[in-house]
């Protein structure tokens, strides 16, 4: 099985970090993984995205043309990447910040109030962590539960910020334990 | 006054004449004959007057002159 995911949002929402953590989590489970961030001048002006592949077989191309999943943390990202989804793909959009509905009818959608859910776990900046917990839940077979994220956070987070790992794990866990209504 | 003598390796000489100009005793002059490169070279016309000051050798860009001194 191969899952191709695009994370997108504005700078500061931690979309590239979320992608990296998912990649590391996949690696810890001996999956084949790849992560390509948007970079350089592309990142100036506020938008950021990354492409993550988690697969049971060798990743042929790390480039994602038709994602299985798009995670859009703000409105411009949804507008841009919704149309990339393959038919039947899943759009997870941050309904805390996005006040419009997805327009495509041939995809599945999930309104995820990521900012609100993060705030509920006292982790106001943890919308990206909510996404990770949600993905582990709604993409069966990709990541086995919350455990792999502990390793991933430990690898990805600098020593200075490691003190936030427990609260981030708690946020991921809370998001993982929710039930989601995919339309 | 020291006594000395210039040893002139004429085949290295390019005939610039800078040595002749700096000699305080005016005992160097250009040769009539030419070396293998076809240029005139300095000759000492009065070795007895050489004071081994080494000015000619110092000035020479081509390491033509060595100085022997007593």
């Amino acid at each position: 099985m191969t899952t191709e995911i695009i994370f997108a949002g504005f700078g500061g929402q931690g979309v590239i970090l979320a992608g990296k953590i998912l990649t590391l989590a996949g690696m810890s489970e001996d999956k084949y993984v790849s992560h390509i961030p948007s970079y350089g001048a592309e990142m100036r002006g506020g938008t950021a995205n990354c492409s993550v592949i988690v697969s049971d077989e060798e990743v042929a191309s790390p480039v994602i043309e038709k994602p299985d999943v798009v995670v859009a943390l703000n409105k411009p990202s949804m507008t841009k990447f919704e149309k990339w989804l393959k038919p039947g793909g899943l759009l997870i959009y941050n309904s805390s910040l996005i006040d419009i509905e997805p327009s495509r009818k041939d995809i599945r959608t999930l309104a995820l109030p990521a900012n609100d859910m993060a705030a509920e776990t006292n982790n106001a900046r943890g919308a990206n962590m909510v996404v990770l917990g949600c993905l582990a839940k709604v993409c069966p077979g990709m990541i086995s539960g919350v455990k792999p994220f502990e390793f991933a956070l430990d690898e990805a987070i600098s020593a200075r910020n490691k003190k936030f790992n427990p609260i981030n794990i708690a946020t991921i866990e809370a998001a993982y334990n929710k039930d989601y209504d995919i339309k | 006054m020291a006594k000395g003598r210039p040893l002139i390796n004429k085949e290295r000489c390019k005939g610039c004449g800078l040595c002749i100009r700096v000699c305080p005793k005016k005992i160097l002059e250009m040769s009539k004959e030419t070396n293998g490169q076809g240029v005139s070279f300095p000759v000492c016309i009065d070795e007895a007057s050489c004071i081994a000051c080494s000015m000619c050798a110092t000035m020479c860009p081509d390491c033509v002159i060595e100085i022997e001194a007593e």
Partner: protein
Amino acid sequence: MSKKYEFPKSMNDVPTHYCGGCGHGIVHKLIAQVIDEMNIQQDVLLVAPVGCAVYAYNYINVDSCEAAHGRAPAVATGMKRVHPDKLVISYQGDGDLLAIGTGETVHAANRGENITVIFINNAIYGMTGGQMAPTSLVGQVTKTTPFGRNADEVGYPIRACELLNTLVEPKYIERCAVYDVPHINKTKAAIKKALTYQKEGKGYSFVEVLSMCPTNWGVAPTVAADWVKDQMEPYYPLGVFRDVPGGVTPEAATPVAGVVTK
């Protein structure tokens, strides 16, 4: 009788390709003499430039490397970083040092690389046949300034010592000349001091030498020597601009601001 002045041991006994009366030969000899006196033939690494002195390694018998035009200080930097215990000499002409290689010149000095740059300033491009150099004098006729260098069009000649003397890091900057014996002796002393400082780890040293190019100036060697004294020296004053170990420390060498504290 014994030899009072002899052919330098660290010079190869081969004829040079320089023209008669060219200052390069004098400076090569001085470098070889200093190497002999300091007994550092095993320690010196020479960078030869593009320009008339490209064959310096054929005459001075030390391990040597050619550099592309203007890049000698960069090559010297690489060598020095690998062998901090060796004495690296970057030997350069005026086009190399102040035109195509201005960036490398300024930045090696600014980093305070512990190398010695010997700069032969003869106010003209020799190897290519007499074009304007960045140091050609105003009014000087060259192949590319047939009516004389026009300052309105191409600016005034650059003074390397004064330029580098605005930087913090250089430790020793002196301008010398080789148009007569007393000045040749001073030049040798300057080269020796520069290499001594380098050996002691003092930092960047720069010796400029006003030199003759009779062929491309189109004059006799003796006239060329006078031209250095009468025409060049007034614009390029001789002397020690900076000798930090020796106590000549201009204000520029002691910055009082520009350091960010945490």
